């Protein structure tokens, strides 16, 4: 399968929308600090497209299935 294009970099408005959907009480000043690590994780996730993901189901108790 072709490698998909990367997602747009996570911005503050999108993060606010995601956090609002969780319903968790998070102070505005705390949200400021959440943007860099969340964005970094989202960007790192794009790197996983280098793997043959189409050939794999999600791992679950994988050793027991494999032994």
């Amino acid at each position, binding site marked *: 399968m072709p490698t998909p294009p990367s997602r747009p970099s996570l911005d503050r408005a999108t*993060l606010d929308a*995601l*956090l609002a959907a*969780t*319903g*968790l*009480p*998070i102070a505005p000043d*705390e949200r400021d*600090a*959440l943007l860099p*690590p*969340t964005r970094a*994780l*989202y960007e*790192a*996730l794009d*790197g*996983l497209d*280098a*793997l*043959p*993901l189409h*050939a*794999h*189901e*999600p*791992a*679950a*108790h*994988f*050793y*027991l299935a*494999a*032994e």
Partner: protein
Amino acid sequence: MPESATSPEARALALLPVAALAERLRRREVSPVEITRLYLDRIAALDPTLSAFITVTADQALAEAAAAEREIAAGHYRGPLHGVPVALKDLFYTAGVRTTAGSKILADFVPAEDATVVARLRVAGAISLGKTNLEEFAFGATSINPHYGACRNPWDPTRIAGGSSGGSAAAVAAGLCGAALGTDSGGSIRQPSALCGLVGLKPTYGRVSRHGVVPLSWSQDHVGPMTRTVRDAALVLQAIAGHDPRDAASSPAPVPDYLADLEAGVRGLRLGLPRDFFFDRVEPEIAAAVRAAAQTLAGLGARVEEIPLPHAHLTYAAGATILFAEAAAYHEPWLRARPADYGPLVRARLHVGAAILATDYLKAQRARAALVEETRRLFADVDALLTPTVPVAAPRQDGDRIRWPDGTEEDVRGATLRFTRPFNLLGFPAISVPCGFTADGLPIGLQIVAGPFAERTVLQVARAYEAATAWGARHPAVC
């Protein structure tokens, strides 16, 4: 506190390997009550500096020791952990003894039953001295706990002991117990073991029960021993390994004899030294110590070869995504009801986890399946991998960033778990064993990794290296 607790004779007894202590207990040259009192006195003397313990159960420990003493005297010797005082990370349920998980939220939580591993240690005759300090809910790598104090490294109390099992590491390194249990979801046994000069073993996922352990990341949580020698790690693993029907991920595979091949050496074994990832952004003296360890093993008859690991760098994204999302899922009710009772760092990490999409979590689990398959194939060509456990020596308590010569920066958690986290994602067994000291006198760890359920191989390689060197004979000056 009796001055005798830190005398040279007391220190030598307190720092004996469990295997040697067990022999003296069996011969009744030392009594369980005597060794338990010694460790309790040393905790009283040294723990105000180290903050290794959250709860010390002195009365219970002495009662257990007296019972062990009676049993041994009556000829009912149970085996090499009988009468041996141990410490338990405060993440393990202990019946009747509070289990805080290093948190304010569980500050008054008193379980009604023991975790399976704690129950198994009791059956083996071990004596619990108490519960050790850790990162709040095990979600971090420094053991600078906002509720129970900053755990300190016995080699240099201005440095971190590592985490999240920092208290267990400090307690074993300082001779406050014979051995300890830790948990490892991203490196939390191996990283503090490396930073404190210990042996720390993360077994295969499913090999040791997680029942009765406060979870961090269900699919990456592991339980294992933290000890002063490789043989001690094998002894503790032997006692705690095995199927547990109360742990859904527990393997029914038979438990082998972990001591059987311990002295078999490494002649003819194929050891891989990764070409990629594991030697990037490493302090030069740590990289040199690990390469020297590989040479030592080659000198003992192993075939050491450089091998490619082209996708090792992808384990971070998959492992971190799974860990953050699973932790956020577990903590969601408390995050909603008691957010102010978390320390700010752990609360922020949990909020990051809450913002992970379900599709991304599943993408990470699919990547995990691909990486497991790829890495399993690697072990057709090698018996074990050799890597640094941690790319830096123990960071300072007041430092939160690592700056590399290439201009990049990492936070302490990310840097110090960079080489351990892949094997939580993969679930393969991995051990850290001391392999030298920096010019500042801080310990360096060698990580040895093998394929699923090949704990005997990691122990065998670690023991061969340990026997050829004398790093484990050094102990911190503070104790």
